């Protein structure tokens, strides 16, 4: 449960961007969260709602875009979206799999009121 400390990092970015663009308020925040990022989207939303009170994002809406695990196989170049914890290549069975997406925790974009 480290969602609150991650949300604190979100607010560092929001304050920096608002200052950079001369904005008074942040109205929307879009996060990309990988399935394997080790955080729970619902808890991120709760933490965001607690944290935003009294800040420039007081009225902001948080949108979490969940990114599924996408793997690439270096042996056959096959790509696949995985829904379970099976990290073998669906095409050739290789176990040398690379996780291309699904571990990210990214502030993708924000909407500012100027």
């Amino acid at each position: 449960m480290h969602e609150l400390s991650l949300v604190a990092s979100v607010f560092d970015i929001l304050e920096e961007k608002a200052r950079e663009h001369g904005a008074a308020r942040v109205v929307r925040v879009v996060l990309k969260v990988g399935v394997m990022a080790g955080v729970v989207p619902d808890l991120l939303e709760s933490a965001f709602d607690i944290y935003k009170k009294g800040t420039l994002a007081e009225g902001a809406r948080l949108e979490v875009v969940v990114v599924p695990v996408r793997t690439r196989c270096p042996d056959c170049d096959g790509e696949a979206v995985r829904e379970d914890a099976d990290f073998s290549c669906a095409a050739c069975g290789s176990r040398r799999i690379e996780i291309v997406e699904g571990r990210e925790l990214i502030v993708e974009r924000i909407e500012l009121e100027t």
Partner: protein
Amino acid sequence: MSTKTISVVRDLLATNKQAAAAIRQELRSRGILCVNLLSSPGSGKTTLLESLSGRFKDRYRMAVIEGDIETERDAERIRAKGIPAWQITTGGACHLEAKMVGKVLGEVPAAIDFLFIENVGNLVCPASYDLGEEIRCVLLSSPEGDDKPAKYPQAFLSADCLILTKSDLFPHLPFDPAKAAAEALAIKPGLRVFTVSALRGEGMDALAAYFVEALARLRSAGA
């Protein structure tokens, strides 16, 4: 008043990753092998370190950074073995972050071989935080059950080494070490697997040798 959407694309863990990279660089330049130990509470991280300190005695110097939510108890246990130890109490936080390790790093003696970081007991959150280590070990003790790799894949996916602990209890528990290892290897091929009883010393020589080999590789790469 108008609104505008701006593209940000900023990694929330970027600050931690930068701090970890600085720690890694500093420890490499000092020729110190850093090992991050992850596991559930009570799986035997501190006991493993006590046992290792006996194996390394008079041959290698080690230091330990302990992460816990409360108390100095683990650091006291390590100090009782004559090993320098620093306790980071996170005051509720479920994991160590690189900046917490960075604050202690200046106090760690230059003339050591190994720096072990015992993370907060938690098989979930610490997996997301690079601490600048060279080797990440996940401990899985026999009483926890052999189904843990499949249930907590992030921790095993991020690890270099799996240590199955409390092997002295294998005969008494429905724990299948081969199944635990196979499930972990399905998640992370190439994971090094060790089986130990830190209390009885079984398997500890092989684990100590693994760390010594990794230290030699680190130093030859830096030379």
